[in-house]
C-alpha cells in the first residue's frame, strides 16, 4: 500500500511540486518577506524652515521632497497622491508631522520614532487616525476575494466543461468560439463585480472603513484587476484536466499574492530579492488602488502606475488565456479547401505520410 502510494505520488507531478517545491519556496519567500519593520520612510519637508528641519531629521526619514514655499496643503496633496509616507510642515518654533495612516506599518514606525523625538513636533495621522489594521486590510481583502473568485471559481467552472466532455459538444455546436468564451466568462465577471461592491459596502459598514475617493476610479481598478484574475482562471482551466488540478494550480497563484502583494507585509520592508516578485503580482497593484482610493481619496492621475500595470497585465494575461481557450474550442490544424454547392463542406488535408 505504501509502495503504491509512493508510485502514484511520483507520477502526480503537481502534488509532488506542492510537497517539495512549495515548502522550500514558502520558507525562502516567507523568510525574506515576513518583515514588519520599515527601515526608511519617504519624507517631505515643507514650510519656511524646511531646509533647516531637513538637516535635523534622523536617517530613518528619507527626505525626497523639500519645499520651503510649500504649505500644509502641499504636504497633504503629496500624502494623498501616495508619493510620501510622512510630511513635516515646519514653521517658526514648531513643526507638524502629517503621517499617511493608509501605509500602516510605515505609519506605526513613524509615530514610534516621532514619539522619541522632541515635543516640538506634533504628530497627526491622516486617513487612518487610529491606525486600525482593519482599515488597511479590508481594501486588500477585497482584492484577495476577487482573486479567489477569478482564479479558483472561474477555473473550476471552465474545467468542469472539459471534465464532463461538454466542451467538446460546445465546440461542435454552431456557436462561435468568441461567443462561448464570452458566455463562459461574463457570468463570473458579473458575479465578481457584485461581490466586489458587496464586500466593499460590508467592509465599510462592519469595520467603518472610509471611502474617501472616487468610486469610478475604484471601479476602473477593480475591472482591470478582474480581467487579470479572470484571465488567470481561464489560463488555469486550459492547463488542467479536472477541478483538483485547477485548485492546485490556483493556489500556486494565490499564495504568493497573499504573502507578497503588500497586503500583510509592507513592500518597503521586504528584501529586494523578493520584492521584485511583488511587482509581477496583480494584487500588489489592486491593493495600491483600493487603499489609495478608499483611505486617501487618491485621484486618478496619482494612480497611473498601478492602473497602467494592471492594464498591461490584463491585456497580456486575458488575451493569452482567451487565445489558449479558443484553441481548445477550434483546432486550427484543419484547413478548409472547398464548399460544394449542396452545402456539403469538403475539407482536405495534405501532409507528409
Amino acid at each position: 500500500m505504501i509502495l503504491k502510494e509512493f508510485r502514484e505520488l511520483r507520477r502526480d507531478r503537481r502534488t509532488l511540486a506542492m510537497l517539495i517545491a512549495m515548502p522550500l519556496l514558502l520558507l525562502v519567500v516567507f523568510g525574506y518577506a515576513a518583515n514588519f519593520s520599515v527601515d526608511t520612510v519617504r519624507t517631505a519637508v515643507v514650510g519656511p524652515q524646511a531646509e533647516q528641519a531637513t538637516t535635523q531629521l534622523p536617517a530613518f526619514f528619507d527626505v525626497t521632497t523639500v519645499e520651503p514655499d510649500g504649505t500644509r496643503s502641499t504636504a497633504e496633496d503629496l500624502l494623498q497622491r501616495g508619493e510620501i509616507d510622512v510630511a513635516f510642515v515646519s514653521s517658526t518654533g514648531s513643526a507638524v508631522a502629517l503621517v499617511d495612516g493608509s501605509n500602516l506599518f510605515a505609519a506605526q514606525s513613524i509615530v514610534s520614532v516621532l514619539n522619541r523625538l522632541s515635543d516640538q513636533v506634533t504628530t497627526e495621522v491622516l486617513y487612518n487616525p487610529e491606525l486600525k489594521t482593519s482599515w488597511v486590510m479590508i481594501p486588500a481583502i477585497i482584492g484577495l476575494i476577487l482573486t479567489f473568485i477569478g482564479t479558483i471559481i472561474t477555473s473550476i467552472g471552465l474545467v468542469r466543461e472539459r471534465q464532463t466532455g461538454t466542451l467538446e459538444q460546445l465546440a461542435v455546436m454552431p456557436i462561435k468560439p468568441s461567443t462561448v468564451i464570452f458566455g463562459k466568462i461574463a457570468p463570473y465577471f458579473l458575479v465578481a463585480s457584485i461581490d466586489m461592491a458587496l464586500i466593499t459596502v460590508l467592509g465599510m459598514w462592519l469595520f467603518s472603513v472610509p471611502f474617501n475617493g472616487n468610486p469610478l476610479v475604484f471601479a476602473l481598478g477593480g475591472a482591470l484587476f478582474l480581467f487579470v484574475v479572470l484571465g488567470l482562471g481561464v489560463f488555469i482551466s486550459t492547463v488542467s484536466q479536472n477541478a483538483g488540478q485547477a485548485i492546485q494550480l490556483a493556489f500556486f497563484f494565490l499564495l504568493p499574492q497573499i504573502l507578497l502583494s503588500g497586503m500583510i507585509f509592507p513592500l518597503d520592508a521586504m528584501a529586494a530579492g523578493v520584492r521584485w516578485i511583488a511587482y509581477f503580482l496583480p494584487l500588489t497593484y489592486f491593493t495600491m488602488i483600493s487603499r489609495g482610493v478608499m483611505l486617501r481619496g487618491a485621484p486618478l492621475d496619482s494612480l497611473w502606475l498601478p492602473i497602467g500595470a494592471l492594464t498591461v497585465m490584463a491585456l497580456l494575461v486575458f488575451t493569452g488565456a482567451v487565445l489558449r481557450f479558443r484553441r481548445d474550442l477550434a483546432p486550427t490544424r484543419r484547413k478548409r479547401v472547398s464548399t460544394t454547392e449542396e452545402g456539403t463542406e469538403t475539407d482536405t488535408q495534405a501532409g507528409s505520410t
Partner: protein
Amino acid sequence: MSYGVSDAWVRFGSQAALRGVSVDVPTGQVTAVVGGDGAGKTTLLRSLVGRVGLDQGSVAVPARERIGYLPATAGSWLDMSVQENIDFVGGAYGLAGQALAQRSDPLLERADLAGVRDRLSGQLSGGMRRKLGFCLAMLPDPELLVLDEPSTGVDPVSRVDLWRLISEAAANGSAVLMSTTYLDEAERCASLLVLHDGRTLLSGTPHEVVSSLPGTIVSTATLSRPDFGWRHGRELREWFPEGRQPTGGVAITPGLEDVVIASSLKLALDGEEQP
C-alpha cells in the same frame, strides 16, 4: 447523399491514430465503427465533426448546423435540468419557443424523458442520460448524426431504447455513424468498419464482413495452436488460415465476433510473415 472520410491520416506526435482510414456514411442508414480500445474509433468520429484535423485525407460533412454529435462522455450538462439542456442546445441551433417544442417534445416522448423534464441531468440514470444526450444531438434534425459509443455502460433495456431511437433517426433520413464495442449492435447496422490500431481491418455490410475472412473457423474441444484460438461461451474456437487444413474440431459458420477476432489474428500473422 453520403458523408464520410477518405484516406484519413491522423498523428498525435509520433503515434499514428488513423492510418489511411476511409468510411462512407450514406443517408438513411446506420454505419458502425467497431474496434478495441485505442483502435481509432473516437479519433475517426472526432475528425468527422471537426474536432481533430487530418494530417492527410479528406472529410465530407454537411454544414455545422446540420451535424448532431454525442461524445463518449456525459452528452449533457449535469447541473441543468432536462428541459434546460433542451433549451440551451436548441438555442444554439436557433430553435426556441414553439419551434423548439415541436422538435423536442416528440424526441423526449420517444426517449421516455417527457416525464422528467425538471430533473437535473446529473440525477438521471446512466441510460436516461445517454438518451438525453441523443435527444440533444437530434435537436438540429441532423443530416449527419455522429454517436460515440452511445450505449457503452448503459443497461440492456436502455440499450434497446437507444437502438430504436438511432434506427428511427436513420429511417427519417439522417446519415448515422456510431462507434460501438458491442458487436451485436454492429451486426444490426447497414454497414460497418472494423478498426485495429488505426487501420481498417474489415469493412462492408455485416454479411460482406463475415464472408470476407479467408480460412476456416472451427469449434473445438482443444486448441491445436493456442495463439490462434479463443473462447466463445462454453466453446473454444480456432482459426485456420486459407490453405491450412483444420487439425480437428467442427467447421462453423462464423459470427461477426469470430470474424473480428480471427481478422486481428490474421493481421498479426501477416505482420509476422513480413520480412
